[in-house]
């Protein structure tokens, strides 16, 4: 468990003082995948870097599995850091060392024996699918391959916590997918706690259990991913989610359509239910799916459908009532009473 207690981080330069992280407190459970999102400059990286004290917080405590990192001597801190893997946005591999040596370095830092190191490195390279690149220098790797070396290094000492700073931006979709799958697997198989910064809400949706939204150094909203996606409270959160969930119906479609257009939001189990099918079978209306999306967030469906209902006014009215009874949110975009 990671307890972040009233963390503040100020950057003081001669000219001014910038507050990077402003009094953030969070608790992250063991085994959880925790997302952090926010605009550029919101303080995401600063917060993450406080977690392993790469950046010493100006105030507050970081307690990981009961140990207050801020109170440790540098030797003890090094020992704790070995249990906290970190994946860097820009890979940060040692360019003068081969893939093998880059990963081995982490193990040597933890005083593993030479033989143990060798075994473990080969195992890790197998896991990330880079066994054939072990003697190659980073410059000869693609972005995705470099990132996988970074992951292998972060996992080397069997950490209990993994910190990822925008580990997949600037990677092509296939590579991104492969890396996310890997993280998911690691988390579920090894029970590792993962804290990740991303600006892709898709990643949050697919991977995270909980998410925090940061703005100006503060956490302005926090909660289970499904809750945040289905009931965002802050304007910023809504904006972010809209990149995954929102969609615009081409305006001409609305204008040209002959029927009543409604937007239904399904949440949780209701999405799986056959509202639409029941409605159509119990009313003399024709239903036309104009637009729609159902997302499974942590295996729970969240969906929006835009449906054109065609039929006589009475039937449509009664169909609407029927739907409203069963769905959490119905919105009429265009009403036609032909």
């Amino acid at each position, binding site marked *: 468990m990671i307890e972040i207690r009233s963390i503040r981080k100020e950057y003081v330069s001669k000219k001014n003082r910038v507050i990077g992280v402003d009094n953030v407190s969070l608790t992250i459970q063991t085994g959880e995948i925790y997302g952090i999102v926010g605009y550029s400059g919101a303080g995401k990286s600063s917060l993450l870097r406080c977690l*392993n004290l790469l950046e010493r917080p100006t105030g507050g405590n970081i307690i990981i599995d009961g140990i207050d990192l801020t109170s440790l001597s540098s030797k003890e801190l090094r020992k704790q*850091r070995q249990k906290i893997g*970190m994946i860097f946005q820009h890979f*940060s591999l*040692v360019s003068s*060392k081969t893939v093998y040596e880059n990963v081995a*370095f982490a193990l040597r*830092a933890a005083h593993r024996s030479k033989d143990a190191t060798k075994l473990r490195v080969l195992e890790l390279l197998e896991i990330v699918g880079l066994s054939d690149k072990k003697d190659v220098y980073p*410059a000869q790797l693609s972005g995705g391959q470099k990132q996988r070396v970074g992951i292998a*290094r972060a996992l080397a000492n069997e950490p209990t916590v993994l910190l990822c700073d925008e580990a997949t931006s600037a990677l092509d979709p296939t590579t991104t997918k492969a890396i996310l799958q890997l993280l998911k697997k690691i988390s579920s198989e090894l029970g590792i706690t993962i804290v990740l910064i991303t600006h892709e809400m898709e990643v949050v949706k697919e991977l995270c259990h909980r998410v925090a939204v940061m703005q100006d150094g503060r956490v302005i909203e926090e909660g289970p991913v499904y809750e945040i996606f289905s009931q965002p409270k802050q304007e910023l959160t809504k904006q972010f989610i809209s990149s995954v969930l929102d969609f615009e119906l081409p305006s001409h479609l609305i204008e040209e359509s002959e029927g009543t257009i409604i937007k239904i939001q399904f949440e949780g189990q209701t999405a799986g239910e056959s509202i639409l099918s029941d409605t159509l079978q119990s009313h003399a209306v024709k239903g036309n799916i104009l637009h729609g999306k159902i997302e499974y967030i942590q295996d729970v469906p969240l969906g929006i459908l835009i449906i054109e209902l065609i039929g006589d006014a009475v039937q449509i009215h009664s169909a609407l009532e029927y739907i409203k009874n069963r769905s959490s949110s119905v919105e009429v975009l265009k009403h036609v009473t032909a």
Partner: protein
Amino acid sequence: MSLLNPIVNILPDLNKAFLETIYMVGVSLAVALLIGLPLGVLLFTTTRNLFFENGIVNRSLGFAVNIVRSIPFIILLVALLPLTDLLTGSTIGPRAASVSLSVSAIPFFARIVETALREIDRGVIEAAIAVGATPWMIIKDVLLPEAKPGIIQGLTLTTISLIGYSAMAGTIGGGGIGDLAIRYGYYRYDNTVMITTIVVLICLVQLLQMVGDKVSYMVNKR
């Protein structure tokens, strides 16, 4: 024949001077490496935000380095005579000259090492810190390997500067090619010696530059 004769005549001298230059430059280069390298690493690692962060040590070292760089070489040579005597048991000859050459090479090289280390991507250092590596491991396995190309180019630069300075070692009987050029070419108007020695110097410098560039390129894995 008549053109070659003077050159043949000075060959033994040239040979001796060459060996003296190699000796003086070699010794002071070794010292610069041995002391300047750690000093450069210290200058770098004591700066803000690095693991040995220590403003006082950093500023004192920086000041000391600047002082040595402020003093004209001849004065340094003289000022160091007691030290020279202590270390080599003599104040004259190539061995003695190596002492002041070394002392002036140390801060020069240290600054170059510091600059080369500054070029290292911060992220790489942070990754090593995040992995829980000791400062010593970080220096040995990250800082030095990553800065190697820059350090080697700095070594080339230091060597070439040392060859230039070693010409002044004649003051205390150090000998060497530069001194030969001055004593025979300049004081005794022997153009053959002057031109021969300068050609040797130019060849030496070009060779060093080429080898330095090559090695620096080879160890560069970026």
